[in-house]
């Protein structure tokens, strides 16, 4: 079965695609740290961050609609966490409402905090979409490994990437089998069936894990993970890193002065 892959568009070609994955990892991390640490009152800085990431997105030639869709995926989570902030914050009241027995008031400072969370989350996600859509997942793993991320974590991510589609396939097949036998009946029965399916999926994954481990042992695996190192830091990487760092630092200085 066909799936949309995490690293769709990563086989494209642009200045950004060709950068060393480590460069992209470090600059993405630096960008997110800068965004998160910028005080909310500095709205100009956020405009600048947006322009920066938008410029890079344009250079990378990713389809804008794809980027937008991808970046909106996290919004339900962000909103779920942040939606109540305006109601609980102390300060000047922006409006208050009577809902049945409750009296609810929204404060200005609460709204600012909400905007802060939403903007920062969105900018961070944009930069992550840029990273994942311009970097092949395998390359990204190599980059993580060579940036000193523990081998075990890299291995877990690698297995996750390899088997997520196998599991999704298994899940889809189970759902088809269920639907072809006229899945219906009461809500309680439906929930029970879904519960059973999740349980079976879990057991199957566990058994697959055992078989994969046997396959690893068969080829001489002795709990030590080995790999060939083959990334090289190019001139373009140096230029890009320096330019990016300068942009972030100068924005910090400039907006601090203003």
């Amino acid at each position, binding site marked *: 079965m066909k799936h949309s892959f995490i690293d769709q568009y990563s086989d494209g070609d642009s200045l950004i695609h060709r950068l060393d994955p480590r460069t992209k990892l470090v600059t993405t991390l630096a960008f997110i740290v800068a965004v998160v640490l910028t005080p909310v009152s500095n709205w100009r800085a956020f405009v600048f961050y947006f322009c920066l990431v938008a410029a890079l997105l344009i250079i990378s030639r990713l389809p804008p609609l794809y980027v937008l869709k991808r970046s909106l995926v996290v919004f339900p989570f962000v909103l779920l966490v942040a939606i109540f902030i305006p109601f609980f914050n102390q300060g000047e009241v922006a409006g208050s409402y009577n809902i049945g027995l409750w009296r609810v008031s929204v404060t200005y400072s609460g709204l600012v905090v909400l905007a802060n969370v939403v903007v920062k989350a969105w900018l961070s996600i944009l930069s992550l979409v840029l990273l994942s859509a311009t970097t092949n997942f395998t390359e990204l793993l190599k980059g993580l490994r060579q940036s000193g991320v523990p081998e075990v974590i890299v291995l877990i991510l690698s297995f996750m990437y390899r088997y997520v589609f196998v599991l999704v396939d298994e899940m889809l097949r189970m759902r088809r089998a269920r639907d072809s036998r006229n899945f219906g009946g009461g809500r309680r029965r439906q929930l029970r069936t879904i519960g059973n399916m999740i349980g079976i999926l879990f057991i199957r994954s566990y058994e697959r894990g055992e078989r994969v481990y046997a396959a*690893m042992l*068969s080829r*001489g695996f002795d709990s030590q993970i080995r790999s060939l190192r083959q990334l090289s830091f190019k001139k373009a990487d140096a230029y890009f890193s320096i330019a990016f760092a300068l942009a972030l630092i100068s924005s910090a200085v400039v907006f601090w002065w203003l």
Partner: protein
Amino acid sequence: MDRIVEIENLSFIYPDGCQGLRDISLAVYPGEDLAVIGPNGAGKSTLLLHLNGILRGNSLVRVCGLPVEEKNLKEIRRKVGLVFQDPDDQLFSPTVFDDVAFGPLNMGYSESEVRQRVAQALEGVGLAGYEKRSSHHLSAGERKRIALATVLSLNPQLLVLDEPTSNLDPRSKWSLIELLGRLPVTKVIAAHDLELVRALCPRTVVLDEGRMVAEGSTADILDDLSLLRAHGLAPQGKAIPAPG
């Protein structure tokens, strides 16, 4: 050394109390292709897993003259290439290169040797240039071949295959059988596919309920309809002609 595998009176009980193998004695000779056939649950896969020490039963198995025990495992796993039935179990790395290089890297070969072995193994299964592909993008036939390449990269003396043709369409199946026939290495093949057995293996053993119930030339065994019927390997009625 006149035997690649020597098994004497081997029994194996799974941790849950299930009897996997009962009193198996078997020898595999260098250069031969041996088929292991039997119904589902007969113990075929269990037997194969004893050949490189993933499972160990009550008696000692000798492979390439070495007893299968802790201190010999690395050497034995280099000499015995075990290909699992489901390529999704065998191919666990993000790219084909990483999977084929996994064995050689574990053996501690140098980078240039690893690269050379990967290229050779892929060439050997007719998929040269597949290094950068990811295995979940490949067809079932290609995956089976890559799974084979992951053990060929270790230049094994014994190739152990579990249902090599399962899930393949006839075209991929026959091209895989031809490929296996060209490989100059001793093979032990567990299979339900009697066409494969007839095409590749001169000698066959039949397992049922963990016991070895017959052993002999493939032609004799596959022509013995009452034996095949007794162990669920041929149709019971007369309406359908027996395979082969």
